[in-house]
C-alpha cells in the first residue's frame, strides 16, 4: 500500500514539474521511402501450387493416370521491379511430382507387374529465374502479369510405391502389402525446362515444359514421362 501511495505521489509530482511537450516528431522514422511492396522496388512472398501433367494423352506409353498425377510445389519468390511494366525475379521451391501408373495389360513401366495401386514420386529442389511483364497501370498491387522463365531442379529423392492385397482381396484374411523402393536409379538427378505463368494478383495459371529427359538415357526401354504440366498457383501475402 505504501508503495502504491508513493507511486501515485511520484506520478502527480512528475506531472506538476515536468515540461509540457506539445509536439515531437522523428522524421527519420516516418519519411523512409518504402522499397518493399507488391509494386515497389523489391517484393518477395511464398506460394503454393499444383500442376497436373497435361501431355501424353494420345501416346501414353508410360501408362500414366493423368488425373491422379501432378506436381505440388511450395516456394519463395522474389521480384525486382525494373520499370512499371517489367521486372526480374527468382524463385526457390520444393516440389513433389507424383506419377500414378495405370494397371493394365499395356503396362511396361516401371515393370510389367500389375499392382492394386502404383505410383512414382520425385522430390525436387528447384530454382527458377524469370522475367515479368505487367500489362496495366496500377497502384501498389501485383496486377496482371506474364512471367517467362527457365528452371532447374535437383531431384534429391525418388520413390516407387506399390499397394497389393493377398488374394483373394475380398477375403476377411486378406492383407495389404505396401512396398516402397527409394532412390530409383532410372531417374535423372537433374531436370530443366521452361515455365510461363499468367497471373493476376494472388492467383496465377502456369504451364511448365520440361526440356530434359527424366529417364536416364541408358534405360532405353523405359518410356519418357509427361513433359508438360499446367496448373494454378496461389501467392500467400
Amino acid at each position, binding site marked *: 500500500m505504501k508503495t502504491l501511495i508513493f507511486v501515485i505521489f511520484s506520478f502527480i509530482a512528475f506531472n506538476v514539474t515536468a*515540461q509540457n*511537450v*506539445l509536439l515531437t516528431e522523428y522524421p527519420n522514422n516516418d519519411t523512409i521511402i518504402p522499397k518493399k511492396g507488391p509494386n515497389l522496388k523489391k517484393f518477395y512472398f511464398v506460394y503454393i501450387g499444383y500442376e497436373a501433367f497435361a501431355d501424353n494423352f494420345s501416346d501414353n506409353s508410360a501408362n500414366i493416370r493423368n488425373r491422379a498425377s501432378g506436381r505440388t510445389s511450395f516456394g519463395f519468390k522474389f521480384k525486382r521491379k525494373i520499370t512499371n511494366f517489367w521486372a526480374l525475379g527468382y524463385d526457390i521451391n520444393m516440389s513433389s511430382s507424383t506419377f500414378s501408373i495405370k494397371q493394365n495389360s499395356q503396362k511396361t513401366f516401371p515393370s510389367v507387374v500389375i499392382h492394386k495401386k502404383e505410383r512414382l514420386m520425385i522430390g525436387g529442389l528447384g530454382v527458377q529465374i524469370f522475367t515479368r511483364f505487367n500489362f496495366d497501370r496500377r497502384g501498389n498491387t501485383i496486377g496482371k502479369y506474364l512471367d517467362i522463365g527457365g528452371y532447374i531442379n535437383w531431384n534429391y529423392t525418388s520413390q516407387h510405391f506399390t499397394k497389393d492385397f493377398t488374394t483373394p482381396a475380398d477375403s476377411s484374411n486378406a492383407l495389404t502389402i505396401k512396398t516402397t523402393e527409394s532412390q530409383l536409379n532410372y531417374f535423372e538427378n537433374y531436370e530443366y525446362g521452361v515455365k510461363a505463368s499468367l497471373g493476376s494478383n494472388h492467383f496465377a495459371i502456369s504451364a511448365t515444359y520440361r526440356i530434359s529427359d527424366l529417364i536416364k538415357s541408358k534405360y532405353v526401354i523405359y518410356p519418357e514421362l509427361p513433359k508438360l504440366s499446367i496448373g494454378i498457383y496461389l501467392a500467400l501475402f
Partner: protein
Amino acid sequence: MNGKKSLVARAANMAASKGMLVVNAVGNEGTNRWKKIITPADADSVLSVGGIDPETYYHINFSSYGPSTDWRLKPNVSAYAHVIVATPNNIHETDGTSFSSPLVAGFAACAWQTHPQFNNMQLFKEIEKSASLYPYFDYAHGYGIPQASYFLRKTNIAEKQPTTIIEVIDDFINIKVIVLPPKDALNKYLYFHIQDSKGHLKKYEVIEVSQYDVKTFNISEFEKGDILRVHYLGSTIEKQF
C-alpha cells in the same frame, strides 16, 4: 512527393520560372495515415504553407508534415488554419490549410509592393527570413509565421538577445532558459531540433516551458556533425557536435 513528378508540381515550377510566386497549402493530412505534404506543395519553387492553430499558436494537428521525399524543407512558412469565413447567409468558423495559403499569398502581395525590385524567388527567400522562427525551422512549421514588420522596418527578430543556454556538463547537455511569468509565457514555446550532418532533421520538439531546466540529453544521442538548434522567445542558438 519529390516535387518533380506530379503534373501539378511541374506546372507550379513552370509558373515560378515565368516569374510568379506560387503559394500553396501543404494539405490536411497530419492526422491521416498519409500524414505528409501533398503536391504541389512538394515543388521546390512553391512557397508551401503549413497550418497554425490561432489558439495555441503552434502547429495545428491536421496540417501536413514535411519534408519532401528528397528532404527539402516543407512547409516553408505557416499561417492560421482555423478561420472565420463569410458565407452568403452567415459567418462560420472553419479550418484547413487552404485558409493558411491565401493568408500568405495576400501577405506576399503586400510584401512585394514594399519591395517591387524583388523577383519571385528573392521574395520567396525574404518571406522565409521574415518568419517568426527564422533561422530555426522544422517540418511542422517551416520557418514559422511571416512577419510584416520585417518588410516595413527590416528588423530581424533573430537578432534579439539570447534567452537560452546550451550547457554541457560531463556526458549531459542541458537546455536552460529564462522562465517568464505565467501571464507572459502564454503561447511562448521552446522549439528545438537535432539536425544531422546531411542537413536532415532527426528530431524536433515544441515544448511549453515551465522551468529553468527544459531538456537534458545524453551526449550519446548525438553523432559527429549533428547540430542542436534551439529557438525561444525570438532568438535561436545552436551547438554543433
